[in-house]
Structure formats: structure tokens, C-alpha cells
């Protein structure tokens, strides 16, 4: 009844091509933003920030990045953890080398550096396709992790081999380091996520995004109709890596504070983010957010139930959690291979006809 195009008259082209053509969606979007920026920062505490909101925001950025590469451009990558490590170490080197520059600029620069590395590892995608490419990106994952472990310059010759974020602020509000407040962490990540999600949404529905999707659907056919595969694939790698690099930088500087590369950015991270993209829905920005939310909340929920309520030992709970996550992934793939985003689309279709389905 409320959810329909009818009666919502568009009088300009820009209105006609806006992201949310339905009025209800627009209101909902602004309502979500109002809650995210107007309500949550005032009520958030350390537990909620560290267990739920900050990881959700950061993983969302990474998932959007990976979704650009896998969902929009069709290039399967298992090197996400390695690229996040590039972002983390880049921001660490920048923060310690240029303490007077704003952390925001450092984070964006770290994304840029990761984009360059991503393009380098994306070059073989012009020759290698499908699963061969997926395994080839594992080279990036293992090589980068090894590199950050073995070259002391990257961790400033610290004795433990760890990197830890020094204290930095924006306009006097501390963003990184141990004295950061929960709401500062949250707001910093939320602003970056909002900006990047907006960017991703508009890129993917513009000319660049259409080229990516043409390559994804069939690269030879795309080439014949005039899409340059070199430019399309490498731009997808670059932009995807930029997002992932920013996520890695935030993950280290804002969320973890101190990181060890093999532990924080190992192959498990690559799979986790790939799961977020698949469960959320390939080729959907909303899906990336939904997938990230799902896989951040699930372990928290399971841990609370198994350890908190049933009182089982934590190692047993961890194993059962693995089983449940594995089982859920399979169930999801069988029931809805297009992910949460598809459920969302179906729900909207239903809502359009409600309350008169025929």
C-alpha cells in the first residue's frame, strides 16, 4: 500500500535515476542514517563497539570491496586477508613516519597503496580465469603475509614483530590508541563506510560498473562490444583493493590497536570475507552489509548461547560454532544461492503487492 512507485511523480531525469526510486525506501534510508549517526553514538559502550558495531562496519567495507571484484566483475579472489594486511602495514608506516598528517588522510593513502598492490596481483587475471585465478590470488595472500613477517622495516624493527597503533586524533577527538572512546571509533568507521558505500553504489550503477558486469557475464562477448578487458579488470582490482586496504587500515588502527600479521590477516580472514559476500549476495551493496552483519553477529550470538547460557567449555563451543557456520553456509547456498540480498528483493516484491497479492 505504501511501498509502490505509483503516485511518486518524477519531473526530472536525475530524480528518475536516483538510487531509491520509491519514497518509502528513501524515508527508510534516512531513518537508518538518523539512527546510525544520531542515536547509536550516544548509547554505545565498549562491549557493543568492540564486539558488534566496529567489526561490522569494518567488515562491511571489506565485503563491499570484495563484492566489487567477485560479484560485479566476476574475478574470484582469495587474497583479501593479504590485501587487508597491506592496508594495515601501510597505515602503520604512514602513521609513524608522518605523525603530523591527519589519520583520515593516512587511511585513504593506505587504501591507495593497497590499490597499487592489488593491480599488481590483478595483472595475471588477464590470462588466468576462474578457479585458476582464485588459487593464483592465494599467492598474494601467502606472499604478502610472509613479507610482512620477514622484513623488519615493515614493523619498524620492533622486537615482538607486532605493530601497534600510536595515538592519533581528528580535531582533538582521539581516533586510535588505547584511550579511544567507543563512540569515536564507531563514528569514524561509520563515516568512512557511508562514504565508501555511496561511492560503490554510484560506481556500480554507472559506466564503470556496467563494464565490470559485462566482463563478469562473459568476457569475450564484452570485449567484442567494446569493453576493454584490461581496463575493466584492473580497475575492478584497484577499486576493490582500495576498499579492502581501507578496511585493513581501520581493522588494525581503530579496531585491534595492535596486530600480528599471520594471526590477524591470515587465510581465514580471506574466507570469512568471501563468506560475507556469498551469504549476503553477489553483486549487491546491501548484500555486503547484510552478510557482514550476519557473520559478525552469529559468533557473538552462538558464544552467548553456548558458553553464557549452557555453560559449555569455550573450545567445545568454538568447534560447534564452526559446525554451525559450515552448516548454515551450505543451507544458505541450497535454499537461496543469491544470498540475503535476494531474500530482501523478494520481500520488497511482496511488499509492493501487499495487501492485495492478486
Amino acid at each position, binding site marked *: 500500500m505504501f511501498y509502490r512507485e505509483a503516485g511518486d511523480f518524477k519531473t526530472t531525469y536525475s530524480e528518475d535515476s536516483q538510487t531509491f526510486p520509491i519514497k518509502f525506501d528513501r524515508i527508510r534510508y534516512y531513518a537508518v542514517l538518523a539512527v546510525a549517526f544520531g542515536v547509536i553514538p550516544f548509547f554505545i559502550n565498549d562491549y557493543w563497539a568492540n564486539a558488534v558495531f566496529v567489526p561490522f562496519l569494518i567488515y562491511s567495507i571489506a565485503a563491499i570491496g570484495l563484492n566489487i571484484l567477485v560479484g560485479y566483475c566476476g574475478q574470484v579472489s582469495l587474497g583479501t586477508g593479504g590485501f587487508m594486511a597491506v592496508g594495515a602495514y601501510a597505515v602503520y608506516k604512514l602513521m609513524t613516519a608522518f605523525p603530523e598528517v591527519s589519520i583520515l588522510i593516512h587511511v585513504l593513502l593506505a587504501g591507495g597503496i593497497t590499490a597499487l598492490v592489488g593491480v599488481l596481483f590483478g595483472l595475471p587475471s588477464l590470462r588466468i580465469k576462474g578457479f585458476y585465478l582464485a*588459487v593464483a590470488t592465494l599467492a598474494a595472500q601467502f606472499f604478502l603475509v*610472509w613479507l610482512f613477517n*620477514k622484513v623488519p622495516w615493515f614493523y619498524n624493527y620492533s622486537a615482538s614483530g607486532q605493530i601497534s597503533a600510536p595515538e592519533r586524533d581528528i580535531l582533538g577527538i582521539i581516533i586510535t590508541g588505547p584511550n579511544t572512546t567507543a563512540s569515536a571509533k564507531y563514528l569514524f568507521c561509520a563515516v568512512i563506510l557511508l562514504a565508501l558505500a555511496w561511492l560503490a553504489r554510484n560506481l556500480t550503477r554507472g559506466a564503470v560498473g556496467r563494464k565490470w558486469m559485462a566482463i563478469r557475464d562473459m568476457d569475450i562477448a564484452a570485449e567484442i562490444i567494446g569493453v576493454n578487458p584490461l581496463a575493466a579488470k584492473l580497475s575492478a582490482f584497484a577499486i576493490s583493493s582500495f576498499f579492502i586496504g581501507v578496511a585493513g587500515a581501520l581493522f588494525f588502527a581503530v579496531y585491534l590497536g595492535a596486530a600480528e600479521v599471520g594471526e590477524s590477516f591470515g587465510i581465514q580472514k580471506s574466507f570469512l570475507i568471501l563468506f560475507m559476500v556469498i551469504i549476503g549476495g553477489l553483486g549487491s551493496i546491501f548484500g555486503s552489509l547484510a552478510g557482514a552483519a550476519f557473520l559478525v553477529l552469529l559468533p557473538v550470538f552462538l558464544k552467548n548461547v553456548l558458553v553464557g547460557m549452557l555453560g559449555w567449555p569455550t573450545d567445545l563451543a568454538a568447534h560447534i560454532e564452526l559446525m554451525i557456520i559450515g552448516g548454515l553456509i551450505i543451507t544458505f547456498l541450497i535454499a537461496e544461492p543469491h544470498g540475503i540480498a535476494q531474500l530482501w528483493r523478494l520481500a520488497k516484491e511482496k511488499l509492493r503487492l501487499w495487501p492485495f497479492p492478486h
Partner: protein
Amino acid sequence: MPDTFFYAAEVMLNGLMAGVMYSLVALGFVLIFKASGIFNYAQGVLALFAALTLVGLQEGQIPFAHIINAIFGTDLHHFGWTLPAVVAIALTALVMVGIAIVIERYILKHLVNQEPIILFMATIGLAYFLEGLGDVMWGSDIKKLDVGLPQGISDTIEEVTYNWFGYGFFIDKLDIVAALVAAALVIALTLFSQYTKYGRALRAVADDHQAALSVGISLRFIWVLVWSIAGFVALVAGIMWGSKSGVQFSLSLIALKALPVLMLGGFTSIPGAIVGGLIIGMGEKLFEFAIGPMIGGATENWFAYVLALLFLVFRPQGLFGEKIIERV
């Protein structure tokens, strides 16, 4: 001749032996990929699960003891008997067949005709599930696997080579056994697929699903068969790896090494899996020996992947893979 030369030769030989281990895992991948086009990420975890089950059965562990203890507050751990290795291996093989049936019935059947990436994801989900299940069933502590395979450095080889070259080669007996087993396995698989009815059916399915269906071959049965064989190969790999370095979680990570082996050899070729494994095993040991000390060591973590990556840039289908033909 200088000792460094012999040392390099010894490193190379040991690399070849390690390569055999990779090949054992890669073999399972190839079988499944050929028969069903599924890139089975869970192969490594299958090996881990097989090894865990084998140890558990052999030592008479009570499955799910942890969870039973957690729920009922009991303190169960062992039945109190030990099984002979042969019986335990046979029982584990049965368990792997059971798993194959369950996988076909509850996963593959529902995912027919999905895109390869979805199937790949499903096998990752399966890997997580089996990993969790293995730990819940048998506990996650590192276990020693001993089915009576010879262990330690082979004295005979050391003596003979010392008498010949004046330099004794150190080669693990277990590696030699693994090489023999791998050879036997490949011969058995080749004979099976060439000369038996089901082997032919398997090749027909690998060639063309629809054509195979139309001449009356049951796809579902073939899938169960091929996953059972892959489970059996995983069991062999699990025994070898488990005897070498203990049964633990890292087993499933070592199995990731089978991926570059596959890329090098080609996803669809059994000889490719063997040759690829040998090249990777030898290459990474020699690289670590020659270049490793200069750049900080531990290059084995990534060398295989980078080698495969560079190789693929020049030959995208791998050494023995079918030529990739794309049509619009």
C-alpha cells in the same frame, strides 16, 4: 665431487618425497573435479577427518565424549579397547563411504546445475563443518598416528650412498613408503578406470554429463562412488601425513598446498597431479635451500603459489590440463 652438490641432491630427493605427499592430496581433488566439475576445497579436511577417525577408532575413543560430558556432567573418554590397525583402517574407509553418501544426498543433489563458484563455496562450508565435527567427535588435541609404518631415517640408503659417493643420503623411510603407496594408488586408479564397468562409467561422466545420463549411467551413483574414492584417497593421505607430523588441525592447511600442485598439473589430469606435486615439492625445497637464507627463510609458505602463478601466466591450463576453449 663437492659436498654441496650432494647436499643439494639430497634436498632435491627429499623435496620429491614431500611432493609425493602433496600429490596424494591433489589426487583426490582431481578425481572429484573430473567427475563432477566441483572444485573440492574440503579434500584437505577430509584427510584430516579420516586421520582423526582412524586414530579415534584405533584407540577406542568414545565419539562426542566432550559434548556428552558437557551436557550430562559425566567423565567419559575411552571405551578401553584398542583395535588393530587393519580393522581401524577398514572401518574408517566405511565411514568415508558414509560421508560420501551423506554429502551426495544432502548437499550435491540440491546443488545440481548451480554455478561452479556456488559449489566451491558449498565445499568450503563442508570443510568448516567437517573440521568442527572432527574436533567435536574426537577432541582437538594433537594425536599420534601409528599404523605400523616404518619411521625414521633409512640406514640402508645412507650406507649404500655413502659407499657409492662418499656421502650418506638422509631419507625418511616413511617418505619411501609414501612414494610406493602413491605409485600403487595411481596404478590401481588407472586400472580401475580403464578396465572396470564403473571405471568406464566414471570416465563417461567426466567426459559429458548429459551423454552419460542418456546412456543410462546414474549420475548420483557415480558421484557417491567418486566421493567415496576421494574419501579413500584422503584416508591414505591422512595416514601418511598423520604418521609424519601427527594428526592436528594444520593438516588441513598443508592440504592447501595441493592447490598450486593442481594448477601446475592441470585440474583434470591425474598424471598432472603427480608431476605437479613432484615439481612443487622439489622446487620449494631447492628454493629454500638456495635462495631462502638470503631473504629470511620460510619461503616454503608461498613459493608453491608464486611458482604456479608465474607458470599459469604462460600456460593457463597447466601442464597436462585440457586446452581451455572459449566460445561466445
